[in-house]
Structures are given as C-alpha cells and as structure tokens.
C-alpha cells in the first residue's frame, strides 16, 4: 500500500500541494543552472566554430552518423517511455510505471553503450586529443580542438546520463516499495523533467557535432 500522506509530507511544509510545487520549482531552477553550465560549452564551441569553420566541418564529417542517429532515436524514444511512465504514475498504475521506467533505463543503457563504442572507435582512429592525435589534412590542430570539445561536451552529457540512470533505478526501487500513488508521485515527475532535459541537450549536441559535416561524409 502507498504510504499515508502524513508520512510523505516533510515537516517544513504545511500541505502536499505546497511541497509538490516547491519541489517542482526547485527542479526547474536546477535545470536552468544546467542550461548555463552547458551554455558555457556551447559558447566555446560557437566561438571556435567561427574561427575555424573548415576544420570543424571536416571533424564533423568524420563522425559516425549511423551510430549518432541511432543514439538520437534511442533517446527520443526514451523520452517517450519516460512520459508514459509519468502518466502511469499520475493514474496510479504501479505496474506500468515499473515497466516504463525499466524501458527508459534500457534505452538509456543502449545510448551509453553506443556512445562508449563510438569513443572506442575514435580511440582506434587516434582522434583522442593529446600527443597521439592524428587527423589527415592541413587543419589537424584545429580539428583537435573540435574533438576536444566533442569529448568534453558529450562526456559531460554522458555523465548526466549515468546520473539519470541512477535516478531511474532509485525510482524503480521506490516504486517497488510502494512509495508512489496517484496522490503522491512528485519524484517521478521530477526525474522525468531531468531526463527530458538531458535528452534535449543531446539533440543540440547531435546537431552541432554530427549533422554539420554531413554533406562531406564518406559513406
């Protein structure tokens, strides 16, 4: 059975609606800080993209578009299953909530698996910035910066994915313990907000790192 509401209401709040609204606001504020965090990186990317357009497009053409597109599809699907999970929580269906949380986790794991496969392929191609970096063409050192930003930005995103997987896992555990009901499921909603945010970041990363050099891609 679900916990009685009195247990869920923390002592600093007067009523459940106040607790829910405050927690949701907190999550939105957190997401704005994340936007500023990634924003700094997008700014750096934009500046150097402007300085070194040829090298950045050449670097982008070197990406594995098939893996990137698969990953994008996986994340968009995971946002869909997450939304279904939140809906299941709202109607109080614990079974479906479990199912959709698990599906979301699986899709997230697919994403991370593919992402690290890509990293490994980059490593084999000597695309990791540093002494071993190799890139054919005149713009090698500029392309190195492209790859550096690629690793920092997708790496930070992957870190957020790991955190997201952890959050989803804890949601599954709490759901199994019967913590959520149609009346109380704020943590699921907040987990959903976070998950969608991380997905949206990826959509932008996909655009700047993969699509830009698509016309030069060697199929």
């Amino acid at each position, binding site marked *: 059975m679900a916990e009685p509401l009195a247990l869920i209401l923390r002592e600093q709040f007067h009523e459940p609606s*106040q607790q829910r609204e*405050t927690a949701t606001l907190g999550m939105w504020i957190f997401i704005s800080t994340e936007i500023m965090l990634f924003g700094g990186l997008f700014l750096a990317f934009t500046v150097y993209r402007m300085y070194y357009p040829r090298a950045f497009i050449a670097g982008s053409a070197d990406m594995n578009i098939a893996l990137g597109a698969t990953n994008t599809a996986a994340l968009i699907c995971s946002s869909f299953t997450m939304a279904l999970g939140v809906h299941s929580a709202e109607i109080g269906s614990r079974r479906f909530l479990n199912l959709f949380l698990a599906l979301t986790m699986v899709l997230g794991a697919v994403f991370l698996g593919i992402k690290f496969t890509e990293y490994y392929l980059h490593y084999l191609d000597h695309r990791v910035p540093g002494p071993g970096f190799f890139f054919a063409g005149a713009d090698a050192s500029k392309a190195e910066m492209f790859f550096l930003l690629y690793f*920092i930005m997708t790496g930070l995103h992957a870190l957020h994915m790991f955190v997201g997987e952890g959050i989803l896992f804890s949601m599954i555990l709490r759901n199994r313990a019967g913590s959520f009901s149609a009346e109380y499921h704020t943590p699921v909603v907040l987990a959903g907000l976070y998950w969608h945010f991380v997905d949206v970041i990826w959509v932008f990363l996909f655009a700047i790192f993969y699509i830009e050099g698509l016309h030069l891609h060697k199929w």
Partner: protein
Amino acid sequence: MATVAETPAVERNYLNQGEGILSWLFTLDHKRIAILYLVSVTMFFFLGGLFALLMRLELLAPRAWLFNPEDYNKLFSMHGIIMVWFFLIPSIPTTLGNFFIPMMIGAKDLAFPKLNLLSWYIFMFGGLVTVFALIRGGVDTGWTFYTPLSTTYLNTYVTAAAAGVFIAGFSSILTGLNFIATIHGMRAPGMTWFRLPMFIWTHYATSLVLVLATPVLAVTLLMMGVERVFHVGIFDPALGGDPVLFQHMFWFYSHPAVYIMVLPGMAVISEIIPTFSRKPLFGYDFVAYASMAIAAIGFLVWGHHMFVAGLSVYSAMAFSFLSYLVAVPSAIKVFNWSATMYKGAISWDTPMLYAIGFLGLFTIGGMTGLFLAALGIDVHVTDTYFVIAHFHYIMVGGTVMAFLGGIHYFWPKITGRLYPEGLARLSALIVFVGFNLTFFPQFVLGYLGMPRRYAAYPAEFQMLNVLSTAGASILGVGYIFPLCYLLWSWKYGKKAGPNPWRATGLEWTTASPPPKDNFEVSPVVDGPPYDFGRMREELHLG
C-alpha cells in the same frame, strides 16, 4: 509568574535541542547550519586576512625584504581566492540568510533542508581542497586564473586550487536554489511579495545571480583544468585557443559575483536602517525593483574588466554605458536609505554605526567604480592600486561592514544574549578608521601609477604604503575585538529577550534563541513590513 532564579529553567530552543557534535554535523535545522557556516567562513576570513597582513608587511619597504617575489605572488593569489570564494560569496547568505530567510517569511525551515546541509559539506570539501593546494605549495595565478599563464606557464598547485573553487561553486548553486524555492513556496499566509522584508527581496536577487552565474564559472574552470592537465588547446593561443574567451567567460561569472557579494550586504543594511531610525524603509517598491535591476543589469557589464584586453572600441563603449547604468539602482538604494534616516529617531547602536559606515564607504566604492567604467580613465588606472582600493571599498567597506553590522544586529536573536555595547561601538570605530587608513592611500597610489601585484615598488611610494600597512594593523585589531567579545557574550552576555531593538518583522516575534521550529504558532501576516506606527500603537494599547 515566578521571577527568574539563579538557575532559570532552560527553555527549549534550537541550540539545546540535541546534544553533542553529531547533532550539529547531521542537523537539518537551517539555524544550526547557519552556525556551521558562520564558524567556517569566520575561519576562512581570518586565514585570508592573515595573507593580507603578510602582504602589507612586505609592502612596508620598497624592495622585497620579507618574501621573495614568487611567494608574494602566492600570498595575493591565496588572499584573493580564499576571500572571494570562501568568505565574501558565502558570508552573508549562508549565515544570516540561512538563519533568517525562513524566520522572516514565517516558515519552519528552508524548502530543502538536506540540500542545505549538503551545501555546507560541499563547501567544506572545496575549502579543504583549496587549503590542500595552499599547504602543498600554494598557487600564484592571482584569483582570476587567467590563461595561458594558469594553464601553460605556472608550475604551482593551480589545478587543486581551481578544483576547490569548482567544488565550492556547487554549494553556492544549492544555496541559491534553496533560497529561491523557499521564498516562492514557503511564505506564511498573508506574506505577499510586497510585504516581504527587503532582506528577502535582496537575497532573492542574490540567489538568481548565484544559480545563473556560478555554473558558467564551473564550466570555465573545467575547461581551464582540461587544458592544463592534458595540454590540449582551448584557451592557449599557442594551441589555437583564445585567451580572451577565457576572460569573457570568467568575468561573465565574476562580475555578477560582485553583486552576489554586495547585494546581501544591502539586505542587511535595509533591515538595520529602518529599525534604528524608527521609520519604514523609504520607497520600499523602488528598493525592491532596484535589487532586481542590479541582478539583471549586473549580467551585462562584465566587459568593463577587459577594456585593455583587446575588446573592440564599440563593444567597450557598450559595456561602459551599461556599467554606468548599473550604478543607477545602487544609487537609488543609497538615496532611499538616506531618506529613511531623514527626520527619523536615530539611535547610535553598533549595527547602525556599521550601517552608516557602509553608506559612506559603499558610496565611495561605487563612485570610483564609475571612474573605472569610463574608458579613458580606466586605461590610465587599470591594474593599479586604484582598482584595488575601489573594490576593497565595495567588498570590505561594503560587504564586511554589513556582515559585521548584521552579526551585531542579529546576535541577540541567534544567541539570546546581548554583546557589550560600549566595546562594540569602539571596535566599529576602529574598523572604520583602520579601513580608511588602509585603503584610501591606495587610491592615491594607484592614481600615481603603482601597479598591483608586485612585491617591490619605487621608493617615492613608501610613505603611502606605510600608511596603508599601519591602517591594516588597526583594521586587524578591529576584527579581532568582535571575535573575542561576541564569543564571550555567547556565554556571559545579558539575556536579550525576544526583541531588544524593538524591530518589526516576524523573526523578532519569537523567542531568542528561537525554538527549533522557529515559531510556537505558525504566523499569519496582515500588514506591510517596517510598520513602526502600528507597533507604537500596540505598545500604547498593550
């Protein structure tokens, strides 16, 4: 009721509810977390102050006589890093803000007590990492970590120091997030936005800056760290990077950070001045809007730190104009505080002395900021002691004065005890004299052309430097005094009672020290803030 005997029955309050060190380390009570922060930032303040004192000693003589220049570089770097990130940024919000935001809005606690405790642990961890860098050999980049000096050329503990700042940034973010959510969601019934004490408005503006600017610092330091550790190009021009980009990103945080430091000072002043003038805050709405305007415009002026770094003339002009603009809301505040005092029944208690000191010193700091916002003058005085004097008038003359004023003002509420008033007034005077003697000569030095960040200087500057060092030692005494008598009064001071200043505001309606849940009965608000007239009526009727 029976009169109080030698051993009065101990009331239950937040200080005696829970015994032992663990009850403090695992507390979720915002008041106890505020005390934890107060102890921590005080330690960092004296550590940073020690570095300052050593620098001033070195500058007694024109030649480097006490430290070699490398060590002097470390002294000013560590002074800046400790003071900016481990004292000034957290000082007022995490102590007085943490303690009084819930009390002023009539809440039992902040919205997220666990995050609040977590933020203290993150802060301490960041502090330890930075102190580790310091013990292992220090860092000599200056507090600004400019690239490529920091990433390519220096062989000191740059990464560790930056990592400490990076970590402490997350504690700032959590504090800001907690305050915003609390002010939105936890206000007592009837506590509408325009019935909020100005302390709350100003902390709200501060929190907005905290959550929006700090992540940019984090990511900037992250990129700097990557460049330094892996020797790959992001900011180093030799590796294809743009060092000016680092400066843009750094100051995009660090200029708003100035407002993180000074807005909470304004918050305290906005409480003290009405109380000791017995008048409502003049132009309440405008002061509230001015706080928000400072937070907003403060994000658009960072370029004035870079006038000589290769900005185009046109963007420099835009930044210059915007820097003038941000002075307008600050001036509104100063005028409104002065108008609050006009024809007020002013009493010269210690908090008011600090508040009046703040008014004068902040005004000088602000006005000299306008000199620096003017492109031509800035080129002349940039990187000189003029800049040092300017921002110390804001940071020390503003924020530290407000911090001390706030500590004295709220001390009876925090501890339930009164401090010795005569001694406190004396040390307020010592601080004021010592401060001006330290920093006013630096305006002159800077205007005459003495550059900042050097261990040696031409002999003709010695007189002014000796004055400044003399002032610093007086200032040091002025800071040690309050530390001693406040600690003494915590145990031996006179009982304060709930409202020793006859101040308005919910925090004064409850016991001193407050009970764990702040209020015996959840308060309901039905009138404007600073309603001294109504208070008088109630006293007459009551």
